[in-house]
């Protein structure tokens, strides 16, 4: 496969909910080992676009290519099979289970099969989880701790680790730093950088422009269901913020009809 084939390519995605045109033909490209920041005001279509990619919504129109191959994603399991994992904003973890159980939830390692009953290989799962946490430098004292006893930042780290654990091609993070303390935000951003260093391709949705600025290689701005900006993250933070806000509120638009590039 040539190096420049994007991991994800979404072409002309359209999606309406009754009279509301949430996505009006959006293109998205994500390259290998790239962190893409996805920005926009509320109801700009960020989450809808990501839910289309992760199989929660079926688009009305448009095509999705994963590593150059046309993909038919009609539910979250299809997306997962293709290596697309989403970290949900409301943390899809089971608080009553321990860290290892959450990381392996829905894909438990099996040591023996008794008819239709599968016996779990708990030690293998715990060991793998420990290796995963070590690799991503996530600081949790034991993989046997119940998730309910962890801090918000640790939980987010577990949710992200879980999403990247199984040959994931693309990790989508929906507001990974929402509702976290400043220290915890720093750790989650470190984790995103760590994942990139390990070769992951990531899409981050965030309201916090500082976060996007700190971890993203490129960013995309959506406004009223259209892409208005797609450019590398460069320059200093203040200039960056000013520019992005201009796109978000509609003062600038690179893809307006008749706009000159």
């Amino acid at each position, binding site marked *: 496969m040539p190096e420049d084939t994007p991991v994800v390519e979404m072409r002309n995605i359209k999606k309406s909910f009754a009279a509301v045109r949430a996505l009006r033909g959006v293109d998205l490209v994500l390259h290998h080992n790239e962190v893409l920041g996805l920005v926009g005001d509320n109801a700009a279509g960020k989450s809808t676009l990501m839910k289309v990619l992760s199989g929660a919504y079926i688009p009305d129109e448009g095509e999705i290519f994963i590593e150059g191959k046309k993909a038919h994603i009609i539910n*979250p399991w299809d997306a997962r099979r293709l290596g697309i994992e989403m970290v949900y904003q409301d943390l899809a973890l*089971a608080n009553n*289970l321990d860290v290892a159980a959450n990381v392996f*939830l829905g*894909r438990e390692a099996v040591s023996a099969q008794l008819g239709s009953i*599968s016996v*779990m290989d*708990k030690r293998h799962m715990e*060991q793998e989880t420990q290796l995963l946490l070590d690799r991503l430098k996530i600081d949790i004292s*034991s993989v046997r701790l119940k998730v309910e006893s962890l801090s918000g930042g640790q939980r987010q780290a577990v949710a992200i680790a879980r999403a990247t654990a199984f040959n994931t091609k693309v990790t989508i993070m929906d507001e990974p730093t929402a509702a976290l303390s400043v220290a915890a935000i720093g750790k989650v951003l470190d984790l995103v950088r760590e994942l990139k260093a390990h070769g992951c391709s990531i899409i981050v949705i965030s309201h916090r422009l500082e976060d996007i600025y700190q971890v993203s290689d490129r960013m995309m701005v959506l406004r009223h269901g259209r892409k208005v900006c797609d450019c590398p993250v460069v320059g200093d933070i203040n200039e960056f913020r000013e520019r992005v806000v201009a796109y978000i509120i509609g003062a600038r638009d690179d893809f307006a009809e008749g706009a000159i590039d």
Partner: protein
Amino acid sequence: MHARMLKMSFIKDAQKIFQQNIREYGMYIAMFVIMAIFTITTKGVFISSRNIGNLINQTGYIAVLAVGMTLVIVIRHIDLQVGFLAGFLGAVAAIALVSWHLPVYASIPLVLSFGVLAGLLTAFLVAQMKIPAFVATLAGMLGYRGALQLVTMGTGTIVIPDAAFNAIGNGFIPDIPDIGILPGVHKLTLILGVLAILLFIINAINDRRKTQAYNFEVLSMDLFIIKLVFVSALVGGITWVLAGYRGLSWTAAVVLIVVLVYDFIMSQTVLGRHIYAVGGNPEAAELSGISVKKITYVVFGSMGMLSALSGILFASRLQSATTTAGTLFELDAIAAAFVGGVSVAGGVGKVVGSIIGALVMMSLTSGMNLMGIDISYQYIVRAGVLAAAVIFDVATHNRGK
């Protein structure tokens, strides 16, 4: 100085382990306290072989319901129909034996499969029609009560003449022939008890060694030995008491098998893990590819089967099917589960805990009966124990957050 430091670290370890498992250990301690109090107040009658044997047989039909109810409450539902479903299916078993002239080995699987069907019907209402389990099973409770009265209407109580069937609720496992040693003691029960202890110890040591090989934390050696001694003494003590009367009853054997199977499923298998996940966060489970619907069908199906088993145990114990069989069983089973540490909020609870809960509730009844305490006070005491258990659960849960 060195010894003192060792002692300090030992106490610290013990405290840590105790705090982490306070709900679980609290229950065992409660059971010991209750048993000790009754043993003293009844001058030893309570702990006599005969009384403990009867106690276990009386607990049997509630215990199997409590096992199923544990799973139902773990996935955040409730089942109010299990009492009259048990009563009705017990009557069906009696009719199968008496009117249809089916042999025991055909009647029992037939009734158990009826139970599964009844459970799947509940699951259909809950998972497919989205009716709250409370309402669906309240309807079931009324319906099965009607069905029970309908099938017993013509004859009233149906007497079961089948000796093999009645042995399930009243009989004991056979003994090996007397060889002169330990007269008056049930030797097969003793042998089984010793085997169980040996198996437990070998298993525990193996597990510890394997876990250490993976470099994971294990109990400190002192605590590990204390745990082994404690469990061995408990199993040994119960075995000795039972062997002093007529040995292990068939009811106890049935309950033991049910508990071992369900405990294994809940703690060691993917199915059990998924049941807990659905109880902890149904949305997360669904997003992880676990079908909440499928789990609901499995859990209510198993509850239906265990209701049938409870009905069989009860009918066998009374050697007949009566028009009121199963009355209030569901509430005893739910109380046993809560006393046994199942969380009111769902997601948390162990099968073994619910059995201990059932034993605690039945010990209260038995002990207070022996003391001659009026039934009205008995209800109030049991209410207090149930309330205390749930308050304890909510308090420890809130503190954890």
